[in-house]
C-alpha cells in the first residue's frame, strides 16, 4: 500500500488545465523525483497535494486516508510537509525563531499556558530550543542563529527552509526545487542531506530542474507534461525515453 496516492487529479485555472487526470503514487521510504518542462504542472501538483489549492477533481490519499482538499496546516500536522519553490522565509524573524516555530504541538502556542508561563510550557520550550539549535547546527547556520532570515543568502535560505520543515519530523517531505539558485557545492551538500533523510526512512518527493543531481539522487523519476504523467520509472530509463527527450527538446 502506497503512502501517498494521488489519483485522477484535475486542476483548472480559468481556461488553462494545469493538471489533467494526473495519477502518481509514492511508496513509504521512496525517494521520487518529479520533472517536466516549465508549465508541466509540477508546482500545481504539489500545491494540490499539500492543500494550498483545492483540486477540481481527483483524490489525494495519505497513509490510507482521503485528504483531498485538506488545509495545509492539518496535512502538516499529520506528517505531510512541503517547501516552496521560491523560498519563503519568515524574513522578519530570526533564524532560530524560524526553526522553533515549526515545532508541533507546543503548549506555549495556546494563550492560557503562554499567559501563565506554566512550568510544563517552559520545559517544552527548552526542548524545542535545543532541538532547533541542533538542526541549525546540523545545517551549519549556527553563526547566523540570531540573524533575521531576511539577511540570508539564497542558499542559506534553502538550508533554513529544510531545517524548519525537519522540525516537524515529516513522514513525507515535498521539496519544490531545493537546488534552484544554489551553487554546485551547496547543491551536493543539500542532496547529501536529502539522501541521508531518505536513508533514515523519510519519504521524499523532489521537484527539480537540475537533472544531473536529481537523477543521481532519486530511486524513481516521474515526468509530467501538460498536466499529465508522461513517463515514470528508473532514472536512467526515463532519461533515455524518447518521449522525454521530445518533451524537453522538441521534435
Amino acid at each position, binding site marked *: 500500500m502506497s503512502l501517498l496516492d494521488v489519483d485522477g487529479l484535475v486542476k483548472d485555472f480559468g481556461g488553462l488545465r494545469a493538471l489533467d487526470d494526473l495519477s502518481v503514487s509514492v511508496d513509504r521510504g521512496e525517494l521520487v523525483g518529479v520533472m517536466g518542462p516549465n508549465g508541466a504542472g509540477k508546482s500545481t501538483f504539489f500545491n494540490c497535494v499539500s492543500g494550498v489549492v483545492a483540486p477540481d477533481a481527483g483524490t489525494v490519499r495519505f497513509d490510507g486516508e482521503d485528504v483531498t482538499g485538506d488545509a495545509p*496546516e492539518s496535512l502538516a500536522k499529520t506528517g505531510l510537509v512541503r517547501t516552496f519553490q521560491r523560498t519563503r522565509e519568515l524574513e522578519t524573524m530570526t533564524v532560530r525563531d524560524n526553526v522553533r*516555530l515549526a515545532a508541533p504541538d507546543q503548549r506555549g502556542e495556546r494563550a492560557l499556558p503562554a499567559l501563565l508561563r506554566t512550568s510544563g510550557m517552559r520545559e517544552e520550550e527548552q526542548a524545542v530550543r535545543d532541538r532547533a539549535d541542533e538542526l541549525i547546527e546540523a545545517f551549519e547556520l549556527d553563526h547566523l542563529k540570531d540573524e*533575521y532570515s531576511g539577511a540570508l543568502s539564497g542558499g542559506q535560505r534553502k538550508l533554513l527552509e529544510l531545517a524548519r520543515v525537519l522540525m516537524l519530523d515529516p513522514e513525507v517531505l515535498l521539496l519544490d526545487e531545493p537546488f534552484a539558485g544554489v551553487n554546485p557545492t551547496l547543491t551536493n551538500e543539500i542532496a547529501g542531506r536529502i539522501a541521508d533523510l531518505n536513508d533514515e526512512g523519510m519519504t521524499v518527493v523532489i521537484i527539480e530542474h537540475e537533472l544531473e543531481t536529481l537523477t543521481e539522487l532519486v530511486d524513481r523519476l516521474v515526468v509530467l507534461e501538460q498536466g499529465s504523467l508522461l513517463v515514470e520509472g528508473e532514472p536512467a530509463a526515463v532519461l533515455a525515453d524518447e518521449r522525454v527527450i521530445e518533451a524537453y527538446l522538441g521534435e
Partner: protein
Amino acid sequence: MSVRERLFGDGERSGGSAERAFLVGGVCLLVAALLVFTPLAVTVPGSSFVFIEVGTLFVIYGLLVLGLDLQYGYTGLVNFGHVVFFAVGAYTVAMLSAEGSFAGVALGLPWLLALPVGVVAAAVLGAIVGTTSLRLRDDFLAIVTLATAEIFHTLFVNFRGVFGGNVGILGVPQPIADLAADSDTAQIATLVLFGGVTIIALGFMTRLTGSPYGRVLRAIRADELVTRSVGKSTFSYKMQAFVYGAALAGFAGGLFALYNGAVAPGFFTIQVTVTIWIGMLLGGASNHRAVLGGLAIIMGLRLLSRFALEVTPVSADAFASIRLIAVGLILVLVIRYRPAGIWGDERELGVDS
C-alpha cells in the same frame, strides 16, 4: 542588541519584564485601593488638573493601543475600526448600569456586573467581524472594520430611544468618585488604578507575545502560507488576536464609562482610532512599550498644544488645524526617517529605512 531583542529575544528575559510589569501594576492597584477605601485624601493644584485628566485618558487609550498592537503589530491584522469595540464596551456598561439617564436605556444594574458584560459584548462583536472578514485579504479587513465603526457610530446617534442619540447615556455610576474622600482624591485614584490596570495588561501582553504563541502571531504577519504549511491553524490565531484586542478595548470602554459617568457618540469618533494608530506607528509596532511611548508622545503633544493655544495669536479654529498639520508632519517625518517607529525594529517589521 536592540530593545526588542532585550525584551523578547529570549523567553526567560521577556518573562522577567512581564513580572516587573505585574509588580508595578500591583503596587498601583494597592495605592489606588488605599486612596479609595481609606479616608486618605490628596489635593491637586488646580493647574495640574489637566495633566491628570489627559493622563487618565492616556492609560485608557493605552489599553486600546495594546490590543491594536496585538492585532496589527504582531499578527498583521489591519483594524481601522478599533474605536467600535471601545464604544461597544462603554455603551454596554453605561446602558446596563446607568440610573435615570436623560435618554436611552438605563437598567441600573450593579456596575460590577455590567463591566464583564461590556467586555463580552465587545468580544462578541470582534468574533462576528472576525468570522466574516478574517479570511479576506488584509485590505478588506481594513475596510470592514472601518465600516463597522461608522455603522455603530450612526446607530448610536440615530437610535435615540436605545442609545440616547447625541446626548448619549447619562447617570452612569462613578464608583471611584463615590467612594473616595473628595474629587481630587478620586481623580488621582482613577489615574493610579487605571494606570495599574494598563501596566498589568502590558505584562500580560508581554508574556503572551514573548511566548511560542507570539512566535506564531509574528509568523502569520510575516507569511501566513508558510505558517500554515508548518502546521499552525492561522485562522484560529488571527481570530484570537482579533477577539482579545476587541475584548481589551471593550474593557477600556467600560472603565471609561465608569470614570466619565456618561457616554456619548462624541467620545467614540474615528479620532480615537486615528490617535491610537498614530501612537502605535510613531512608537514602533510590535513592541508593547514602544506603542505606549508613541501614544504618550501624541497625547502629550495634544496637551502641550492646549497650553500653546493660550500664547499664540491665532484663533482656536486655526490652531486646531495647525495641530493637525503638526501631527501629520510628525507622522511624515517618522515614516521617512524611522519607518519602523521611534523604538521599532526595522528588521522585525520588514521595512527599509
